[in-house]
């Protein structure tokens, strides 16, 4: 067992534990904080995959923006739902469904012929950011997905503002 494998196993264990805690704790605020731990774990996994740019983006975007927005929303709706009433009564059925889905994925994975043969030496270097930037703005490369993503973000911006504004006189 190499150092990288050890790091991976520890990170994976922490991430999965945090994920399980996220779905099982009653207090929503605690769930959000376990979610942040999951995000951190995924960032470390990206680091192991030598995608240093994505590590930082994961931290800036998921922890810096999304997690804080979620915590903010939880703050604003603190008394909307009783903590003992967070999960649906048929949670056992769902758990069975999720486990079956997992079993299906794993079965497909392990019967995939060349899946287990694929290994690659991870050197642990720094990612070339300039290459990503050039590829994103290259008409031969990924310019159109990039532009579509920007339109999506613009639409989300406008939608978010529209939904957030209080419409006086329209309700009730």
């Amino acid at each position: 067992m190499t150092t990288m494998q050890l790091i991976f196993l520890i990170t994976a264990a922490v991430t999965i534990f945090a994920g399980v805690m996220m779905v099982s704790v009653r207090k929503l605020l605690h769930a959000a904080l376990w979610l942040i731990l999951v995000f951190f774990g995924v960032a470390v996994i990206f680091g192991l995959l030598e995608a240093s740019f994505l590590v930082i983006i994961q931290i800036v975007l998921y922890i810096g923006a999304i997690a804080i927005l979620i915590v903010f929303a939880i703050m604003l709706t603190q008394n909307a739902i009783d903590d003992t009433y967070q999960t649906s009564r048929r949670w056992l059925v769902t758990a069975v469904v999720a486990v079956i889905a997992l079993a299906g994925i794993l079965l497909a994975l392990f019967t995939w012929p060349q899946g287990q043969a694929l290994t690659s030496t991870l050197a642990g270097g720094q990612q070339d950011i300039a290459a990503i930037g050039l590829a994103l703005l290259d008409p031969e490369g990924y310019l159109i997905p990039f532009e579509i993503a920007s339109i999506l973000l613009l639409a989300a911006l406008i939608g978010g503002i529209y939904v957030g504004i209080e419409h006086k006189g329209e309700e009730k």
Partner: protein
Amino acid sequence: MIFIADPITFITTWLNSVLTGWGIPAIWVQFIMFILGAGLLALGAMIFTIGLIWLERKLGGRVQDRLGPNRVGPWGIFQTIADMLKIFTKELITPVGADKFLYNLAPLLAMAAVLGLWAVIPLSPTVFGTNINVGVLYLIGIGSIGELGIIMAGLSSNNKYALLGGFRAVASLLSYEVPMAITLLIPVMLAGSMGLNDIASAQKVAFIFQAPVAALVFFIAAIAENGRAPFDLMEADSEIVAGFNIEYSGLKFGMYYVADFLHAFTSAMIFATLFLGGWNGPGAEQYPALGFLYLLIKTALVYLLTVTIRFTVPRLRIDQMMAFAWKYLTPLALASLLVTAVVDKAAPAGQGLLRVALLIGANIVLFLIADRLVTLYRKQHEKARKVVSDDRPVPVAIRSTVVEEPEVNS
């Protein structure tokens, strides 16, 4: 001679050779050096803060026509040490109904986030924690973890004032992060790299002369990110007592206190690195120790400016603060980004003074247009404002310095 020129590198190479001499594998030597370096840097930063707190209090006193600390030691230098002793011996209180784990974790996060910033700041041409190629993004990411510390403190304290402080903190910090992140891109664009050491070494002409508007926006946004006056809404003591850290006592409060001062200083240092040239200066290449001195002088200048602003300017209202971020700073930062990109393309790097002159000219035009627009907006706004009442006479304290002596009839 080499020791005086660059003491840190000298010590590291010496220690490295000693450790390797003991037969420790290279990877462990590197590991030990990293741990040692990080520990020393963090310790140095925190010890430095002791002096910083004294300086800020003394200076604040002078600005506000007071004496400042003056009892413990000459000029009150040891005041902070006395305060530290008091804080260490105080009882650590956890309020009833507080979320114990979060409540205790929050100050640690706030402190760790500030210390984490020091990892990428180049202290001299040869001394820096690490020159990762996403250094600028790292600054934003670590800053958001500090935000998390503040929000968690507000939420977990089970106190309405703390909760209000937390609300204000989220609103203001998230808003001011937007112009700050946009202006951070401008040094990146000018230097052609996101590593902070590359940005520092690219500044043969300091970036404040190439992007003054961006520097101004960044400076204002950094003050707001620190939560200092005039943007200290999240701990406005006259409105919500102490904001998010109201329930903290003893060392836990001390952590927030130290984090606050250290964050202000670190922001000044980041400003100096990004816009004032960092360690650049005459002779810094040959004598890296001199570079550290230059960085400290530049940082001190910026820091003293923020302290003066803190003790001079009154607090803003929350709606004014949000409007300022979204209506002025963000558009200005975006326009500045666009202008810099266009000029950068028109006059590529290597054209020397022409490029700098073009950049300054574009920035001045941009600033004048922005100023004109703001003035127009304000004029229109003033017309629409209703007159609620007539002006009232303002009470003015009349202080007569000369005491009139009663006339003596002889």
